[in-house]
């Protein structure tokens, strides 16, 4: 009985989240597509030609996986933070809180929404990438696992942001002042071997570096970090963040009085 409730309840949350992504496609799908197009025009075609090769590939080919991953992580994060905070703000999160659904299921439901938007946007950006350059695929399993794990991590991070946020400023603060700098400094546009040694050490504290490089390895077979360690970071982060989300929901932080 409860298993059936959980399965139908989970499907309902996921369908609702997916419908929300499609309903507001002008906010969810179009902006990252335009941003990615501009990146490819400016950094790929115009400036990229003057930069030359990086990691044995043309600059536009080198940055393509990073740009796809950047879209995935920002959109996974953005989806959950806006959807969950919107539900808190509009009080319709109470629909879920009073329903006989376990907290872990609600967390996974929102996480799936984040993954759905991240992957959907990632697919759109990949199609745009193919307009500008050819994508070499070194290992499809690594491509898929790296993008899904990164999406999970940032969906859960977005949920934690939304749980603690008390107003709209607080859901834009982390993306603006934490996520964007980490993404830009996470090896999307360059290999960290170009940096001085001290800067390379600092870069290793940036989790996005591992995600971008694992994903890039899946495409190009080149990476600035150890692949095993990158997976350890991604899986470890996902587990820690998932536990934190469930605990916060159980305690009712930001959701129950």
């Amino acid at each position, binding site marked *: *009985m*409860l298993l*059936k*409730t*959980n*399965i*139908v*309840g989970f*499907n*309902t*949350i996921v*369908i*609702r989240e997916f*419908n929300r992504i499609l*309903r507001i496609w002008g906010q969810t799908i179009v902006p990252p597509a335009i941003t990615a197009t501009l990146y490819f025009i400016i950094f790929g075609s115009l400036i990229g030609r003057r930069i030359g090769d990086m990691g044995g590939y043309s600059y536009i080919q080198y940055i393509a996986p990073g740009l796809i991953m950047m879209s995935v992580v920002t959109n996974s994060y953005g989806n959950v933070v806006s959807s969950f905070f919107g*539900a808190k703000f*509009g*009080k*319709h999160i*109470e*629909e*879920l*809180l*009073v*329903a*006989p*659904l*376990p907290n872990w299921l609600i967390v996974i439901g929102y996480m799936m929404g984040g993954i759905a938007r991240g992957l959907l946007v990632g697919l759109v950006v990949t199609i745009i990438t193919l307009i500008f350059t050819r994508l070499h695929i070194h290992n499809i399993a690594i491509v898929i696992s790296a993008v899904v794990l990164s999406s999970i991590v940032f969906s859960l991070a977005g949920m934690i942001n939304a749980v603690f946020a008390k107003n709209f400023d607080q859901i834009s603060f982390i993306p603006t002042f934490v996520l964007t700098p980490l993404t830009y400094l996470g090896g999307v546009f360059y290999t960290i071997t170009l940096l001085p040694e001290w800067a390379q050490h600092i870069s290793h504290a940036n989790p996005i570096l591992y995600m971008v490089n694992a994903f890039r390895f899946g495409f190009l077979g080149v990476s600035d970090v150890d692949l095993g360690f990158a997976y350890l970071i991604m899986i470890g982060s996902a587990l820690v963040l998932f536990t934190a989300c469930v605990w916060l929901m159980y305690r*009712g932080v930001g959701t*129950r*009085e």
Partner: protein
Amino acid sequence: MKALAFRQLTKTYKNGVRALKGIDLDVEEGDFFALLGPNGAGKTTAIGIVTSLVNKSGGKVEVFGHDIDTQLALAKSCIGLVPQEINFNQFETVTTILVNQAGFYGLPRRVAHDRLEKYLTALQLWDKRNSISRSLSGGMKRRLMIARALMHEPRLLILDEPTAGVDIEVRRSMWTFMRDINVAGTTIILTTHYLEEAESLCRHVAIIDKGQIIENDRMSRVLRKLQTEVFVFNLRNPIAALPDLPGYRTTLPDDHTIEIEMSKDQNLNDIFSRLSASGIEVLSMRNKTNRLEELFMRLVNKEEKAIGDGR
């Protein structure tokens, strides 16, 4: 069977406010139960604990025998909640809101579509099924929340001020609807500031004030505790001064109206005789306030006075 049972239920908020000070309460299955109290008395906190929107500080809550500490999902599946504030997604259509609600309780979409037709029709919202919910009027939004709470056909329906801000016509149609679903077997707990509503609908009443239950009995027994009532007499002709009515407390709000306070051992025949003898013709008569309202005010004011007296 008890639909709801509180034992020594307490809630202290982080700011130190003790919203519930160890209340005991039983609601029998099939009952129509009024939970009344002034603003801030603890009604919504108690409802919040039952529906797990508020974490309790202590005590025990059971819903149809399911302890919310150990069988929360089973307890929740028995409850339908109509909260005080509008809390559906205002960007979704009426149908989407109801289908999603059904889904959160494990009902497949096919079943949900059958149920939404049944409840939207009963609540006169069927023609609004494809409307975006924020475009509905206030009364429609209230009815939508009732339809939503009924989608999983709960055994216990909790209505937290369901008719607030609703015009009298809609309110009365909602009363009829609530009576019907109670007769069909759904236990209902109602909180309302319209005490006429509670008196008309409910068979049991509990009055909560400052986190404590100060009255809990059958409605008829509670109303019998009212020792005096004030009646308002509307007169055909103006009078300059109050007539002589020894033994009654009388006031003259205006020259066409007399208010007379009567105790239980006095009767209206005596008043009418005396008014006729004084040449006063009565056009109509009514209670100054609803009886439950009168009792409610006296009980709450007595509590306040007791606290003021340091008792």
